[in-house]
């Protein structure tokens, strides 16, 4: 199954920013086809493809498009979430640098479906060099008649602007991202209303991830059915997987969903190529900082949305951070916690105060005699409150890694806990 190339097709071309190059490789066949289709039929193809949102939430893109199509009101805005701030994730950057026109074409098809004239790509501030490449690609697209008025000689008008972030992980959350796109602080909004109804500047809005938009042209050219068949029966297509950490061959790999197991992803010579230095694997951190820790004995799950979900895991952003046996689990979790301390926007108490408190306990527990009486109970209850009472997904999922790691490696939590309290861990996991 490996070797299927949908998103990486053309990614090694020497002229990724050349519109002519993309056209010569068969680019814009999808838009040409879409121009002769009714919007509802385009949406049907996306639905049939079972494209699940590639940003992390895995919401079906077809349903999102169908909902927006059914909403009256104009203008409708098209927004691309390119705020790729999830540690261990670098596949959106890969698309923007290597195949930017697939993203541009995908957004243009969305513009066609929803009658929009402007799209926005919200790119994180840390990617200023990527923004410059995208700007060049957009300029070349305009010069080639692929953006602006009368695209491809048709009656279609559509253009795309880049909006820059300035260092805020929470802006990856779509409602926060829209606030930031409006030039405001990127704090999340209360939902409902849903962004499809009240989105950018209060107008109906489509927000999709870079990789989701880049999948639209292949869905239209292949047809939704063929796209579905290239992947898993419950989620079509391929996934760009980002391997990092202690693997021999870190990088972005295109994997047809359901075609390989997590273990294959790490050890297959054509993929991760195994652990560096001949050491043993300890765990994999899946899907981003808010994803689960997977111990070495649970890697035989096929890499698909449905299979991972059944196993209590998640594809998330596509990050696969591989850690070898030399890594101290609590040190790793402290690094995750520190990330959330840094990135909490401070709006709500469970997240703002919970993350530093959890970090303190993790640091205590990582050294002999460090665990104060009741530390494990406090950690458990902090995690419960953060999960249940945080305002947005950032706080609610900040301790997913901690909880899954606790289940997988209880002894590492108990090692330095106050001795009489050791039973707390097993109770907490009961």
């Amino acid at each position: 199954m490996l070797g299927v190339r949908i998103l990486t097709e053309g990614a090694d071309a020497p002229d990724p920013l050349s519109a002519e190059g993309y056209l010569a490789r068969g680019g814009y066949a999808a838009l040409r086809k879409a121009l002769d289709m009714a919007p509802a039929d385009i949406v049907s193809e996306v639905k049939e493809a079972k494209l699940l949102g590639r940003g992390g939430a895995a919401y079906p893109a077809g349903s999102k498009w169908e909902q927006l199509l059914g909403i009256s009101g104009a203008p409708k805005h098209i927004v691309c979430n390119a705020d790729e701030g999830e540690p261990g994730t670098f596949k959106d950057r890969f698309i923007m640098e290597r195949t930017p026109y697939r993203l541009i074409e995908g957004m243009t098809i969305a513009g066609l479906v929803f009658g929009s004239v402007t799209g926005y790509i919200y790119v994180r501030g840390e990617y200023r060099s990527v923004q410059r490449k995208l700007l060049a690609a957009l300029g070349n697209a305009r010069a080639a008649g692929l953006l602006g008025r009368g695209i491809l000689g048709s009656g279609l008008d559509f253009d795309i602007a880049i909006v820059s972030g300035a260092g805020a992980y929470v802006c990856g959350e779509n409602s926060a991202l829209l606030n930031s796109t409006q030039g405001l602080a990127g704090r999340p909004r209360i939902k409902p209303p849903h962004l499809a109804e009240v989105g950018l500047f209060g107008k109906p809005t489509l927000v999709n991830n870079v990789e989701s938009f880049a999948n639209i042209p292949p869905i239209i050219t292949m047809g939704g059915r063929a796209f579905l068949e290239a992947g898993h029966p419950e989620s079509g297509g391929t996934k760009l997987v980002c391997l990092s950490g202690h693997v021999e061959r870190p990088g972005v790999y295109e994997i047809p969903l359901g075609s390989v197991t997590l273990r294959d992803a790490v050890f297959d010579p054509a993929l991760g190529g195994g652990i560096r230095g001949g050491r043993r694997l300890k765990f994999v951190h899946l899907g981003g900082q808010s994803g689960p820790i997977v111990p070495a004995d649970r890697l035989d799950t096929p890499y698909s949305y449905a299979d991972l979900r059944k196993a209590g895991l998640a594809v998330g952003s596509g990050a696969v951070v591989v850690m070898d046996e030399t890594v101290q689990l609590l040190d790793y979790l402290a690094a995750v916690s520190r990330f959330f301390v840094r990135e909490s926007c401070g709006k709500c108490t469970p997240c703002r105060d919970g993350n530093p408190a959890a970090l303190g306990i993790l640091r205590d527990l990582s050294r002999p005699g460090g665990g104060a009486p009741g530390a494990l109970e406090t950690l458990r209850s902090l995690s419960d409150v953060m999960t249940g009472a945080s305002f947005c997904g950032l706080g609610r999922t900040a301790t997913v890694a901690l909880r899954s790691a606790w289940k997988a490696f209880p002894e590492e939590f108990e090692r330095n806990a106050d001795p009489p309290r050791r039973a707390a861990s097993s109770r907490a996991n009961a």
Partner: protein
Amino acid sequence: MTELDDKSVLSIAEGYRNDPQQLIAALLDIQEASGRSYVDRRWAALAARAMGVPAARVHEILTFYGMFSTVPRGRHVVEVCESAPCLFTGAARLLAWLSELLGVGEGGTTGDGLFTLESAGCCGRCAAAPVVKVGDEAYSVSSLSEAAELLRSFREGDPGAREVLRCSG
């Protein structure tokens, strides 16, 4: 190390047609043009007025987003990535090398005003870990001599010398 004059600030805002939606981008440009990697509150107020944005919102933007500084930093901000893929492949060692070479700790600025050393969240170059970001580009650095060469290239304005370390894709 020139201070920005009012005209330069206003022309940055005008470059975005004084569109309030582009306030964040304009402030990033001002920070870059400052030569000291910061946005003086006076410049921010000036840009805000030109773009029709209330002063309170500019304050909010400058304090909400992590990339802004309202106090002068070095001309080059050297940011060591400390997210997990970098941290567990040698980022702490890299930070220690840079600290030794620059003679400042994390958050410190060198006496000549050239460098500020910081740590940062993920910069999306995890396959090249450990990485350090200087300005807009990220560099993969795995030895003390590479760290020294990188700093030298910035100190002496010799971009060619760091090209081999730059993460290109």
